[in-house]
């Protein structure tokens, strides 16, 4: 059980991120979560959006480099220790994490969500589900 993440190449210059968000806004695409990673020269914008395929299409049409990656989204209680309980499972089971970021959806009863990028989705999903952790899928993301 995975969700789709958009990854967008962003040059390290003023307005690079705005160009992306502006296009999405005009297409009425909602951003659920995002993170930015950067080097000295460029950045990568990672987004969870309401309509991944449409977002990819409109961004690519604007000459942007966009890819879609399957990532895992974990539901955690939005309380102290919530993130820690998930990380313990990950650590105990030797799951490597390339990167992660979190988001909350205000109307979802104190739930927070952590996006995990791992080298082997199937193995990580099995580990997390065995530990009784709730994962969400694209359909759930769209309904937020």
């Amino acid at each position, binding site marked *: 059980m995975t969700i789709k993440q958009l990854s967008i*190449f962003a040059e390290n210059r003023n307005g690079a991120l705005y160009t992306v968000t502006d296009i999405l806004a005009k297409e009425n695409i909602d951003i659920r979560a995002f993170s930015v990673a950067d080097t000295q020269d*460029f950045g990568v914008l990672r987004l969870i959006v309401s309509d991944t395929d449409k977002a990819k299409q409109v961004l690519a049409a604007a000459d942007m480099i966009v890819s879609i990656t399957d990532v895992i989204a974990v539901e955690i209680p939005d309380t102290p220790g919530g993130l820690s309980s998930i990380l313990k499972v990950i650590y105990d089971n030797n799951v490597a994490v*390339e990167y992660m970021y979190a988001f909350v959806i205000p109307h979802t009863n104190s739930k927070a969500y952590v996006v995990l990028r791992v080298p082997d989705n199937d193995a990580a999903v099995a580990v997390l589900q065995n530990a009784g952790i709730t994962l969400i899928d694209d359909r759930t993301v769209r309904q937020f």
Partner: protein
Amino acid sequence: MAYFQKEIETASREQIRAWQDERLVKTVNHVWNNCEYYRNKMKDRGVEPGDIRSRDDLYKLPFLTKDDLRDAYPYGLMSMPLSECVRIQSTSGTTGKRVIAFYTQHDIDLWDDCCARAIMAVGGTKEDVVQVCYGYGLFTGGPGLNGGSHKVGSLTLPMSSGNTERQLQFMTDLGATIICCTPSYAQYLAESIHEAGLRDKIKLKAGIFGAEAWTEEMRRDIEERLGIKAYDIYGLTELSGPGVSFECEAQAGMHINEDHFIAEIIDPDTGEVLPEGSKGELVFTSITKEAFPLLRYRTKDICVLNSAPCSCGRTHIRMAKPMGRSDDMLIVKGVNVFPSQIEQVLLSKGLTSNYQIVVDRKGVTDSLEVRVEMTPELFSDTMGAMTQKETEITEALKAMLGILAKVSIVGPKSIVRSEGKAVRVIDKRNLYNT
């Protein structure tokens, strides 16, 4: 005025002409008899040694280019038995375009003579201390000026390049009076001398600077900061090395050693010989070399010749500082760089040919940046994968060029295209006076 070989350097134009006629015929016969590559090239052109009776017939000979040197690598253009050859030298740093040249002992003697003329033309005598900080080894700079300094009888400091601290120590302790290096290194040394507060401790009076393009502004800068006269020297490994031509005290063009080399200016597009005073590509024919004679070698340097009498008394024709290149070769940190080499590396790493080379000079240090447009294939959502790719490209470029190039990944279609074609090279250094 002091000359190393007065009778030759101040010979009449008629005498120089007579030497050229006689030596050209001799060289053409020499390569015809001893070098199959030349023989085939001349046959292809329908020329035989008998067709070349004086330098008026020079135009009948086919041109030789760097491609010939590569095709004939390694021994194809050697025109003496290996048993008579005593040395090779090679062009700097590049794997794809490496050129090697061979020398007999006689060739080295004549090369040393040319460099000795250059040293005496800037006022060098046997009383001088000549610090040679060109690289020694395959590069011709060090061995050439070293040999010339010996012939003059100067005390020679064979420093080779780099290790600035040691350069300054010997320069001050031994009282070096003439320095030989690249102009950019001279600027770097000047800076270091000022930083170390050594300006009053140096005894330099002149510098012989070559192996790179440099401007009159750089000359003034070096002269002011070091309190010396700065002179230009020109040469190519293929032709022997530095000393093909050199500046005299007039600092008004470089005297070509015409008893050893015949210079022509051609239209780079048509190959047609242009009249004196025209701007075009400089072509050299060596007429005294034994091991590695070059007939009508295209230097790709854009230049003008001037046979007006010079105040120094030398009668040999002068060439202006090269005004550019007829190919796209760049010299970065003293190393020859062809954009095609960079393209080859990028393509081998699965990148598109959307790239741009940016050369700049911060202070006195050249920098080389290769901008590559991001492609869907190169892009990844993880940074590690992309930085690894960047590192791979950087290392492959280093292996190909011999110098470090900074690789920058830029946005798709961000490299400016004019008339649909990307501008491949941006050289911000403005090295040519135009």
